[in-house]
């Protein structure tokens, strides 16, 4: 019974869409934050570092509830966004993307920060003496040399985003076609009398995606070392 039913397909497609959007939006922000943490010292730096890693240690449901309080229809920010920009997160796939993005963020930032720190600052100095303004040094020297770390972070973040459950289901519930991702679908299926086969199929899909992400992330990490040594 290897055929995927419409419910399963929908869940997979939704998961892919949510995870892709979450990763693409989180990446530029992740690069900026990683650069700040790697290259700058400022008041409140450890607080920022702690805040970024909070989603890693907080119970996911707590993160989801905090998202509800902040970005829900009547939340602090959510109300303003809905009224002024027409952006709604509650019970919509955009909310799932937000939840997944936040949960994935610490996993995204860490490899990027490490790879930026690994870029020899003396190379950045040399680039400066050749006339490159700081932003051009970043784009032409730092980022290209840190790129494998960026990709590793994106892959890891994507894998986390696609598997996210607790925060998502708390924030945007489990609505088939809108917010029912692979994990929520499995959750629902195992509570249904004949849902085991379907659940198992989705589990296999999840495992394959997760393994591919881990292997991909490892491959990028190894390329990082080779690239930095000029090979």
């Amino acid at each position, binding site marked *: 019974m290897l055929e995927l039913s419409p419910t399963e397909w929908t869940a997979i497609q939704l998961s892919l869409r949510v995870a892709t959007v979450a990763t693409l939006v989180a990446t530029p922000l992740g690069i900026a934050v990683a650069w700040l943490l790697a290259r700058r010292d400022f008041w409140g730096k450890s607080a920022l570092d702690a805040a970024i890693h909070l989603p890693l240690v907080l119970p996911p449901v707590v993160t989801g509830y905090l998202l509800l309080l902040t970005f829900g229809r009547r939340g602090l920010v959510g109300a303003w966004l809905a009224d002024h920009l027409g952006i709604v997160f509650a019970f919509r796939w955009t909310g799932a993307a937000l939840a997944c993005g936040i949960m994935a963020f610490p996993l995204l930032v860490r490899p990027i920060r490490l790879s930026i720190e690994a870029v*020899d600052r*003396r*190379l950045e*100095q*040399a*680039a*400066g*003496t*050749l*006339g*490159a*303004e*700081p932003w*051009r*040094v970043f784009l*032409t*020297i730092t980022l*290209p*040399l840190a790129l494998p770390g960026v990709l590793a972070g994106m892959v890891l973040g994507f894998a986390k985003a696609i598997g996210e459950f607790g925060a998502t289901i708390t924030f945007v519930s489990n609505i088939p076609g809108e917010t029912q991702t692979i994990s929520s679908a499995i959750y629902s299926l195992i509570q249904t009398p004949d849902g085991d086969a379907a659940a198992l199929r989705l589990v296999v899909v999840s495992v394959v995606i997760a393994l591919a992400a881990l292997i991909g992330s490892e491959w990028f990490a190894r390329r990082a070392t080779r*690239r*930095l*040594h*000029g*090979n």
Partner: protein
Amino acid sequence: MLRVDVSKQLGEFSLEASFASEGRVTGLFGASGAGKTSLINIIAGLLQPDRGTIAIDGETLDDTATRLHVPAHRRRIGYVFQDARLFPHLDVRGNLDYGRRMNRLADDPAQLKRITDLLDIGHLMDRRPGKLSGGERQRVALGRALLSKPRLLLLDEPLGSLDEGRKVEILPYLVRLRDEAGVPMVYVSHDAAELRQIATQIVLLQRGRVTSIGGVRALTGG
């Protein structure tokens, strides 16, 4: 024409340097730890003085009194580092072209050929820095700095990390640079023999203090 008049606290001792460079190659001579690298880092704009001024061709680059500090990327001062510091993700061509691109200078194939011929690196264009020998890397670093069309070239012990054979190989290139490239240089070294061959003026630095300025005869002994 470079005018230096700065002081800076460097850990245990303080750097106090005041001199004007005349002519083509000003050799900055002193033992290791005398403050030579810190001094040229200040000239390059990579380090800020505690007090004083740096001016080149009449343009002030640093003036602690008015809090003026022109950042390195706007000084048009080339720098050849002791460890070459070639960009590993670019090939030799990309490294050589970097300064021209960053300074938004027009393409100058004649200049490129002149420099690559002068330094004998034309055959290395498609190689990555990781595949170059120490001598080749240093010549590419020289070419890279020159091709950014600087008005002053700083060299920090460019032969320092090379063995005797490589030094003997590269010194003639440096002498040719002095005679043909038309860019004034400040050449840092703790090797008097080297400086005797290349410098036209010597500034002696001892424990952070300029103890003498003069012709190459100021270098006695080895």
